[in-house]
Structures are given as C-alpha cells and as structure tokens.
C-alpha cells in the first residue's frame, strides 16, 4: 500500500538541483531535473558516502560531489564503469507539491534497523 505524504513545494528545489529530506535512517535526496521531473534517491553514495544532493544534476542523473560517480534517477544505478546503486523511492508532484511514499520510507527504516 502506498501512503503519500507532502514534503514541500517543488519550487523550493532549483532546476538541476536537490534538497534533502531527513528520515530516521538518514537523508533522502529529492532531485529536480531541467524538465521539472522529481526523483528521490538515498543521499549516501555507495562509494564513500558522498552526499548526492550536493552533486551536479544533468539529464536524469547526478554526479557525486566526492569522486564523480554518476547515478541514474530511474534505476538508482551507477552508470559507466563504476558499480553500485542507491535505493529509489516513489515520488509524485501534485499542484506543485512533492509527495513521497511514506510506506516505502518506513520499509527502509526497517531495513536499516
């Protein structure tokens, strides 16, 4: 069962930028692309924990600020030669507000516990 909760307005995130949402199991990065699509991924790079929300957003991907691994927003997977992936969470935009699936976030806390 999905359970959508409001986390804020889309315009609080710059185009090709990101903000984070704090959860009990660490931060989730909310990205907004040039084309106003919104995605939510774990904020911790699997390489050495870099904050993906501080990376450069291009197309539907972000480059980690620490050592330039690139992650695809649709799959959470690292593209190119590096291997690794972060979790992706369902988000929607309704009337300019961003909604995230709380059920999935809780499942994540369960995993982290």
């Amino acid at each position, binding site marked *: 069962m999905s359970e959508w909760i409001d986390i804020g307005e889309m315009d609080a995130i710059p185009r090709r930028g990101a903000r*984070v949402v*704090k*959860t009990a199991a660490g931060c989730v990065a909310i990205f907004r692309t040039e084309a106003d699509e919104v995605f939510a991924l774990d904020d911790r790079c699997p390489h050495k924990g870099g904050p993906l929300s501080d990376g*450069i957003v291009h197309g539907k991907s972000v480059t980690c600020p620490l050592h330039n691994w690139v992650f695809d927003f649709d799959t959470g997977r690292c593209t190119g030669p590096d291997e690794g992936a972060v979790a992706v969470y369902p988000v929607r935009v309704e009337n300019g507000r961003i909604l995230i699936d709380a059920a999935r976030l*809780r499942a994540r806390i369960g995993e982290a516990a």
Partner: protein
Amino acid sequence: MAEKLVVIGAGMASGRMLEHLCEGDPDRYSVTLFGEEPRGNYNRIMLSPVLSGEKTYEEIVTHDADWYAANRVDCRFGEAVTRIDRDRKVVVSASGETPYDKLLIATGSSPFVIPVPGSKLDGVVTYRDLDDTNAMIAAAGSGRKAVVIGGGLLGLEAAAGLQARGMDVTVLHLMGHLMERQLDEAAGYLLKAELERRAIRVHVLANTHEIQGKDRVTGVRLDDGTVYPADIVVMAVGIRPNVELAKSAGLACGRGLHVDDAMVTSDADILAVGECVEHGGTCYGLVAPLYDMARVAAQTLLGQDAAYRGSITSTKLKVTGIDLFSGGDFSDGEGREEIVYRDPGAGVYKRLVLVQNRIVGIVLYGDTADGGWFFGLLKDGTDISDMRDTLIFGPAYAGGSPLDPMAAVAALPDDAEICGCNGVCKGTIVQAIGAGATDLDAVRTVTKASGSCGTCTGLVEQVLALTLGDAFQAPAARPVCGCTDLTHEEVRRLIKSQDLKTMPAVMQACGWKTSCGCHICRPALNYYLLSDWPLEYRDDPQSRFVNERHHANIQKDGTFSVVPRMWGGITTPDELRAIADAADKYSVPTVKVTGGQRIDLLGVRKEDLPGMWADLNAAGLVSGHAYAKGLRTVKTCVGTDHCRFGTQDSTGLGIKIERRLWGSWTPHKVKMAVSGCPRNCAEATCKDVGVICVDSGFEIGVAGAAGMDVKATEPLAKVATEEEAMELIVAFVQLYRENAKYLDRPYKWVAKVGMDWVRERVVEDAENRADLVRRFDLSQSVYQKDPWAEHAAPRMRPSYRPLADLTLEAAE
C-alpha cells in the same frame, strides 16, 4: 539437459575460464562456482593499487552479480569445498553435496609463513586477498611502523603501498639483492637505492630470528641481533599451491596438481587451472600463463582440441614511478654473453643475455620502453647477429633507421606482446582497431589490452596512433567531454565569435549531444560565459561544483571547511576573537593554519554555514574563496615595516593586490605573493603571479607552480611604481581569464601560448593593456561581492537546510 560443471575457487584463473566458456557455448554447462572468499572474482593483482590508495576495491571487481546472473552461474561465495568424492562425482561443502559431470579445480595458492617464533601473533599478516589488504590498511597510519619480510615482487608492492599510507617501512630480504628471481644484482641495487630514496629501509641478507610481542607484534629480531620495532609485520616470502583437496581425493600431485597439455588431471572428468597446477614440472605465479591455461581448459570443456605448452614469463613491478622489466633467464653461465648499457645520470640499466646470438634473458631498469620488443625476440628465438651492435638501443636503431619515438612500436612484429597480463599482441590490437575500436577504451573493451595492471596503456596508445595515422585523436585535441566533439578552445572561440550568451545557446550552436550537458562541460561553459559576458550572462550555481555552489570546501565526510580572507596575511586580535568564537559556537573540530597565511575551520555542518558566515561577516571577515577557481591568497612578507632588508612595502602591496582582485573568477585558481627583497620569504617565485621588490622597483614574474608540478616564475616585466605593477598584474590576469582553457593553471596556459605572446599584449602594447584592465574592472563591478553575505541572507538560508524532516513522521 546441460551438463553440470562445478568450479572450485573464484579466482583470476577460473574467472577467465568461465568467460571463455560462456562466450564459446553459454548453454553447454550449468555452472556452480564455489569460492572460499566471501566475494566473487576480482583482479587480485590490483590489490597493490588498492593498498596504496590509488584504487578502490570496487574498481577492481572483474565479475559482478549481473555477470553471474546473465550467465546463470550459481554462486556459492564464502563456501569452501572440503572434499571431492570422485566415485560418486560430488563435491562436499557446508551446504551439503553438489553433483558434477565435470569438475574444475582452481584453488590458487596460499602464502607461505616462515615458522619462526611469534609468527602467529596478532599483527602478522600475509598478502594474498582483500581481507589481507584491508587488514594492512587498517593497521597503517602516519608514523606507525611496518616490517615486510620478503623483498620479492609482492613484498615490495606491499612496502610501497604501506609507505604511501604514511607508514615507516622496513623490508627484510634473505638474499643479497632484491627480487633476485627477476633481477640481476645491478638492477637489484638500483631498485634498492630508489626505495631508500623514498625512505623505505632495505635490509638484505636478513635472516629473521623471531617476531617479538606478547599478544601483538612489537618488533622483529634478526639472526645478527638487529631489532626493528613494528606495529605490523607482512610476510611475503613465497606461495605454495593449494593442493590438499586434490591430494586427498587421490589426484596425482607433485608440488602442484598435475595436468596434461589439455589441462586435464589424472581423472579425465577433472580439470585444473591456475597457480594450483603443475605443468611440465613448472608451477606459475603470474597471471599471463594462467590466462593461457584458462583458454585451453575452456576449449577442452567445449570438446575442442587445444594444448597448453608452458609459458616464458616476464615481470613488471607495479610501484608507481619505478620502471622495471625482466624476462627469461639472465643468470651468468658458460657459453653466455651479455650486452650491458648504463646511463648513471638517468639511472638506466639494461642487460641482455645471449646464447648463440639469441636473447635468453632481459633485465631493464629505469627505461623499459623496449621490453616488449626484446621479449618478442626472446620468445621467437630470433637470430640477432646482424643487429647486434645496436641491439641494446632498441628497435629505433635496429637496421640503422633514424631515431623516432614511434619507430620502436612500428618495428614490433604483429605477434609481439603488448599487454603481458592478458597476453595481447600487437596484431590483435591492430585487428581490433581495423574492426572499429578507434580509441583506448574501445580497444580495452574488445581485447582486454591494458585492462589489468595498465602499465602498457602508453604502448596501446602508440599502436592506435600508428594504425590510425591522422585519424587518431591525439590526447591534446580531446573534446571537452562526451557531450560534444569540440575542444575547449573551439568552444571558447565560438562563444565569442557567435555571440553565444546562454548555456542553451552554446549547446544548440555547438551541437551538444546531451540535453543539459554533464558535470564536466557545464562548469567549463558556465565559466566561459561569465568571463566573456559579465553583464549579460547570469552565473548558474547548478553548473558549479559543490564547493563553488556552497562557498566552502566539501570534506570527505560531507561536512565543509570555512576559510575567511586575511588580506595579505594580516589579521587583528578582533578577527582572531571572532574566528575563535565561531569555532566554539559551531563546535568546529579542527582549526588549522593553512599554507596560504590564514585560518581554516574544518568540519562545519552544512546547516551551520549561513549562521557562521553571518557571525564572521559581523566582525568584518569575508569569504577567502579557498574553494574557488578564482583569486585565492596573496602571500606577503613583513617588508619595510619591520624587516631590516625590506626594500618596499611588500605587505601593503600584497593587500592592495588582494583587495583589487578578490572575488574574480578565473579558469583555475590563482595564487600570488609579494616578497620584500630577493630573499623571497613569501615564496613569490613559484606562484601564478609573484612580485619581488628591489631597491629600484618591482620585478613581476608569472606562470610559476608549486603543486603537482614545480616551476619557477618567468619574468614578465620590471617596473618602478606600485601603480604600474598593479596594472600589469590585472592585465595579465584578465588575459588569462579571457583565453585559457578551463582548469589550466596560468603556467599550463602560458606554456601553450608562449611568454612572448603574453608580453606583447600585457607589457608592450599599452593600449591593449588598458583595455584588459578596463574589462577586468567591468567584470569586478558584477562579481566582486562577498558570497557569504549573500548566502547568509534569510532568503538563501533555507537551501542549506533539509526540505522536510520526517524523522518522526515515518517512524510512527
């Protein structure tokens, strides 16, 4: 029904065998792969760069979960096979019995531990797998002591890696010179000297008596009484093939597991490859022969005729900055002749051992470029009589052809080996290039050449250059990134000539292949646009690297550092108090004096940045741009105010320069210094711009460097007044801003355009100089502002905070 193939050991040999097998006939076998290590196949030889910190484990994995899944390999990692029941054709492991039709044994070898007292103490490690490597990394630390027992290939790579991690390292070696199996004495000596130059102690003829310590090692004592204190001891004295399992199953074994030319053991359904086998009386300890075995084993399993005939091996040491190559047999002996070449100044030593005009042994130190060519002659048994006089100088001289760096590669025959790790010869690479692999990455993907240790990358590039001729994209003319085919220079020219004033305009006009660029091109374009159109273009924070977006340096743990400006290195008690207060208030873990005459507050949380900046601003401090491709510091000495040698007010001039130039963005960072006299206490002669004050005025030098390269400045001009000095400096910086490629420091850019070109525009042509200064000031009218003040404003603060806090919500 597919036949059942069970593989014991997920190492380098079995990984390669499985690749060949799956390429050959993916459906023939259903494969179960047992590995004692709790992980899949990885490139073991690259543990050394992992140890030294040059690579991460993730970068050396050769087969990942996807690969196993795609090839339907049933993986049992972390599970050792404990018994083979040949009668019932099953292997036994923790999870029970697994039946096989064919069995492949690839159990590798184990490090040998010399059984001296103390060898079982905590802190004594071997060097074989990732766990060993991680144990060493964990034990490493600045100032801690390591003793490596064994001065062979593995021991020296361990020593270099630990030294790179800041440890104080001693190598103990039983024999008279290092790597005695691969090197002759002369080369062993050069190697020892080089290691000692790097502060690695080498003790030869060292017989270990005991390892000291109660629960943990504390030191190593030698037979001669010498004691070396140690926090960690690495044993790298040799390896022993892992054959217990095979032996207990009744398979024929000597030192290793016996196999025939088809890689079949004494049981027709059991094959073996890798370091655990003995073929023709020889056990191997390098990957090239194992890869040959892997190919043959795969062919045998696929029912094809194939034979392995043994290998002649060559060795390289994977220690950055040490060039060493050896191959064949280079011992002295009857009927053997040698040709030796030495260049003491350059530290080069080359020796070829000949028997009846054929090369049988090669040792090269310091210059290994011709290693592949010599090794080819050795393997082919070529008669070298008619090139004997010039042989040692390599293929460039052979047959009297003129000296040309490319000639060496051109002269290689098609079957000359280029990549030793993967056994790839020149012909294979040339073929791959012919079939469309026209750059290094493509060649690497298709042939695997340079894909393992990478030392042959240069050679592969030369083969590319030779084969493609003009079509080869020389590294110098590389496009900005994968989004475009244009170079930085071309893009810069188009931005100006076509009046391109926005990023979408540039991408459109230049035919970008992506929608909104990438992390490589966007920061460059953002810089070119803001420097060329200061009034029209609006800086794009989303196209800046995090440091320039948040105006602080990101740290490895995601926190930031804050460095306020201290004009010319001058500060006041009030500023120091404000810095101390901020450090207290925001619980800054580290306060450090930087190399740039100011103070760094390290480890600040992102959320605290705006608050801290506001506090610092209140005390009159502004951003020091320690994160910027822009003006960093102007270092000064005390000058005439205090120093008995000072000729001019160097501190005052430094402050004036910093006040005029701060806030300007440049292609790369710019650092300056002013020294009050030629004693040069401000180190002005290795800066991007440096001024030396003399009685008669100011000597201005530019294009120095003291980072990854070290280079003295080149004189730009000498002038009589501060005003003239300022004007020249500003004009030089503006010329750099308008023309250099993004991420070229001034010294790199000047090397491309030439000092004369620069002097002409900045010094000789007064009108041009004035224009440059005018354009710089125009840009400053927009960009000289404190970003901290802007970002500390209430409007900007939220962007440093989370969008929402669900810590409570989602935990309900």
